[in-house]
């Protein structure tokens, strides 16, 4: 069980890290220069739209745009931090509860859920 958990973690890590070495550059669209390495797939879709329907113009602008890439990464980090914080709280609580349960198994049994 423990070993399997570690192996799962390692697999996730490898799946994330290996592409950094083994990924080939995305193919250049006809008549355009090759897109940046590890740019967002969303932006590449945007470029693809540009090549399929060159006349298309977005008809709505984002209401608020992060002032810079740094601000955007700050907000993304905030989003991830909120998520990780909640999960961490739950995990900590769960581990502590489990420990308390083990320490006093009789209490757990007598308490009907």
């Amino acid at each position: 069980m423990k070993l399997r958990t570690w192996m799962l973690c390692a697999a996730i890590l490898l799946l994330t890290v290996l592409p950094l070495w083994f990924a080939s550059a995305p193919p250049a669209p006809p008549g355009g220069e090759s897109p940046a390495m590890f740019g967002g797939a969303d932006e590449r879709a945007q470029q693809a739209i540009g090549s399929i329907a060159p006349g298309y113009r977005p008809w709505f602008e984002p209401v608020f745009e992060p002032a810079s890439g740094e601000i955007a990464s700050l907000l993304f980090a905030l989003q991830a931090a909120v998520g990780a914080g909640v999960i961490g709280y739950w995990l900590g609580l769960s581990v502590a509860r489990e420990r308390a349960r083990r320490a006093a198994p009789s209490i757990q049994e007598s308490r009907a859920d």
Partner: protein
Amino acid sequence: MHIMEGFLPPAHALGWAAASLPFLAWGLRSMGRGLQAHPERRMLLGVAAAFAFLLSALKLPSVTGSCSHPTGVGLGALLFGPAAMVPVGFVVLLFQALLLAHGGLTTLGANVFSMAIVGPFVSYAVFRAVAALGPSRSVAVFLAACLGDLATYVTTSVQLAWAFPDPVGGFGVSFAKFAGIFALTQVPIAISEGLLTVLVVNAMARFNAQELRALPVMALRAGKDA
């Protein structure tokens, strides 16, 4: 899988919004009822929402040389049913559309449809199907989360191909192009999401067996595993 602001023609944007709204209403009702009946599940629902928040903020590199992110909605769909994940996905997408200029308000309907509706429902269906076949819970959870994630990105490709058919080859050529960008990039990321979801479900099964047993979806497997 975010379709950028303004990048769907108005008719498509409206259509997808109209398609998503009933699901959102259904999801809110099912979520409200579920919490009223089982207030002890609030914590786990919070964890499932947090999982979606966390994962959809992580843009991971992929073999195609571009980055994309997992969706994280599969976990919640397995625990609380697919409808409950619609409002969660909606909140995540709204946050990103309003504050991050990632996705958009006009494309919110389409993005909700792919990430918060197709993803969770495919995850749930795959889980039920695989669970019925009888392999271990981990296998079912992995396949459900992985395929649900992938389905989201295939849906985005369909949405874009429908809105922007290739002038020569039509829908098919366009779909191949968008799927090459989204779905292909997503393959390793979907596998990562599947593995990660297995980890979280294992942790839940270990620490929250009591609450999990009460959940209709997991009761199915937890009973067989034990």
